[in-house]
């Protein structure tokens, strides 16, 4: 820690910095460049040289900022994200605390089972759940319709919950593992004093373990928040099955639509820049949290 090291730390960081420059900084710079460009077509646009790339200034960016659909997308993502974060981290905390308590049976089985969905690719996970959501295929329809009529799990009012379920399913195990391994790192003797005082398991969990877990909870929240803002796979993969998800449901879907469906790279680049700007604002908070929580040595 005390070493200044001369050029050594820079040499050690060279691979990371080179990779960062080539695969992050350069593409972002290129995106910024593209956002200032556009196509100019003459006449019918058929035949050679009928289409040119031209400089359009901030027109694309202005259009992206002025696009109400993009902001509506942020709102949808906000609602979805709140739901995912609370449910996923709540369950992860509950499972981690239960696993760490002394009297649980089949703990290993449960831990591995809950963690398994983490290894399922997002596209595959959404496809699996998509099959299970479809009214005529879903095993849930029997019980659900017995309870009160047919419930369309992909309907306008419900599809966001169905999407959140896929995200929670995929993410709860990972977060549980983070919290659980943090708890396991705590020496058992830590709880002895509380036990001797006659505190119940519940009281130990609430008064001793959760405060210990606090930094890890904050970090998992931040990482999950970032992942949630970037929601893309779940709505995209569910979209062919329902008429309730538009091609611009989330901001990143709009980027994808512009770049891959309608072939307007320049608008996609401009929207990317707006998203990056918002991410940057979020990142100030994020970096502060990471520094304060994880590296108290500074």
């Amino acid at each position: 820690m005390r070493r200044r090291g001369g050029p050594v730390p820079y040499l050690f960081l060279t691979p990371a910095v080179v990779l960062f420059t080539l695969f992050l900084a350069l593409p972002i710079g290129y995106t910024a460049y593209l956002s200032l460009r556009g196509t100019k077509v003459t006449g019918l646009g058929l035949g050679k040289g009928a289409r040119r790339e031209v400089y359009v200034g901030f027109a694309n960016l202005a259009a992206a900022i002025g696009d109400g659909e993009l902001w509506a997308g942020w709102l949808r993502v906000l609602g979805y994200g709140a739901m995912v974060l609370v449910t996923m981290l709540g369950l992860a905390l509950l499972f981690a605390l239960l696993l760490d308590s002394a009297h649980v049976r089949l703990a290993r089985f449960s831990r591995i089972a809950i963690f398994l969905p983490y290894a399922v690719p997002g596209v595959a996970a959404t496809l699996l759940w998509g099959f299970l959501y479809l009214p005529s295929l879903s095993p849930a329809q029997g019980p659900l319709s017995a309870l009160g009529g047919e419930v369309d799990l992909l309907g306008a009012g419900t599809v966001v919950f169905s999407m959140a379920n896929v995200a929670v399913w995929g993410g709860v195990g990972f977060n549980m593992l983070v919290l659980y391994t943090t708890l396991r790192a705590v020496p058992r003797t830590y709880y002895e004093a509380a036990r001797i005082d006659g505190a119940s398991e519940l009281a130990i969990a609430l008064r001793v373990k959760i405060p210990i877990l606090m930094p890890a909870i904050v970090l998992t929240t931040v990482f999950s928040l970032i992942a949630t803002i970037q929601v893309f796979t779940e709505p995209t993969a569910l979209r062919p099955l329902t008429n309730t998800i538009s091609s611009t449901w989330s901001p990143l879907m709009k980027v994808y639509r512009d770049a891959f469906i309608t072939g307007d790279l320049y608008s996609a680049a401009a929207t990317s820049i707006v998203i990056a700007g918002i991410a940057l604002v979020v990142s100030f908070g994020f970096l502060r949290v990471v520094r304060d929580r994880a590296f108290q040595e500074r």
Partner: protein
Amino acid sequence: MAATATRTRAAGAPGLAATVILLGGALYCLFPIAWVVVAATKSRAELFSTGTFAVGGGLLENLAGLAAYRDGVFWLWTLNTFLYAGAGALLSTGVSAISGYTLAKYRFPGRTLLFNLLIGGILVPAVVLAVPQYLLLSEAGLADTYWAVLLPQILSPYGIYLSRVYASAAVPDELLDAARIDGAGDLRVFGRVALPLMVPGMVTVFLFQFVAIWTNFLLPFIMLGDDRKFPLTVGLYTLLAAGANQPALYNLIITGAMVSLIPLIALCLTMQRHWRADLSGGAVKN
């Protein structure tokens, strides 16, 4: 005596409740996986007509169909996926280890800036990067090669972050100082003293990155045109979006999805002791 009995009973009841809750969570998580396993046994005629969890009689036929599809291209996809995930995770772990160690154990001008930059990468979504990365790699003549999928996935902000946490927690400064007094150079100190101490954490970084590359779809989808270089995710997608006028090959997709989950599930089962996802580096170390 009476007091002890009460306490034992009191401890038993919450234990039971906790077990039930955890098993409930386990069932919820296994449910779709169980479904895909059952669905993979259904023949084409059974897939959309028999009960959700009714086992069908088409498993062997499906597996044979998958193996025969385009002269066994599925196995090629599996090999490719192992290559991308294995080599990518290995390189990524190496870069993460040395970067995390440096950021944790050296004090130098620009340290905070570099850390923030490298970690900040986590904020940039893959969808945003995919097209410019493709255009730039094409410029370098690397599009549609193994490198195009491998190189962009080496830098892992998350891996660097974890490595820094592990290095701070697992490598005592005194040990480094002692090694330096003995005259060891910086590289030697890292390789012989710090790295062995960081190994358990690095295994976790490797596993995370392995899974991340294995499950990645968008990057290889954009980068690759030659279907013999596809990883499983992209390959299976070509079965799903079989093209206008062509039926999606649901049986093969479901069977393929099931088969492709097996290595990852095996990885989780065998390596589960090594997942040390302790994000904040020993919460009570102070």
